[in-house]
């Protein structure tokens, strides 16, 4: 299936620092989405980047996409305690309606 693989598995940072996580995938995509999951809850959509876009911003989030390397990165700037969560990428081929996720990156922001 077309699922992304997030790296690293876990990340611990100090409040105010930036957090960067990466996503790699295997086949060509139509878009790539990033989601956040707070402990014990459902996922929440953060940002969607289309295959013809290279970078996208949303508040303190910055997503890049490199289709030649089949990879994406999510940067959270000036992290806060509320950013403590797991983050998942979902590469979307949009030709079979399937939406698959990997194991995610668990981010812990220390006060």
């Amino acid at each position, binding site marked *: 299936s077309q699922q992304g693989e997030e790296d690293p598995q876990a990340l611990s940072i100090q409040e105010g620092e930036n957090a960067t996580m990466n996503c790699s995938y295997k086949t060509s995509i139509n878009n790539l989405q990033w989601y956040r999951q707070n402990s014990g809850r459902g996922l929440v959509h953060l940002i969607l980047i289309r295959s013809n876009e290279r970078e996208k911003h949303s508040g303190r989030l910055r997503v890049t996409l490199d289709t030649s390397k089949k990879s994406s990165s999510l940067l959270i700037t000036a992290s806060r305690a509320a950013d403590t969560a797991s983050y998942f990428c979902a590469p979307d081929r949009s030709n079979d309606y399937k939406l*698959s996720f990997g194991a995610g990156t668990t981010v812990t922001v220390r006060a």
Partner: protein
Amino acid sequence: DVKVTQSSRYLVKRTGEKVFLECVQDMDHENMFWYRQDPGLGLRLIYFSYDVKMKEKGDIPEGYSVSREKKERFSLILESASTNQTSMYLCASSGHRLNTEAFFGQGTRLTVV
């Protein structure tokens, strides 16, 4: 406010029982998904549906079936629950349009004893 609602937050069932997990969305979405989430394994897709009465196997369909009789409702069925089906189950929905996000329910933590 858009919503995906799962019928139970917590559920405890006995081995061998038939279990129904219900999911309802109010966004008139065509696509609906069922995932299970286990520590270290992330979300794994069990089944999905792109239209009423249509269903497709995901990555781990064994031991599960689904039903989509109405557009807004997608049910996950464990025909004979086993302890290895103890997990967090997440339902999601999305529209058919390109570049569309998925909305998730709050999850059902199922324990099979």
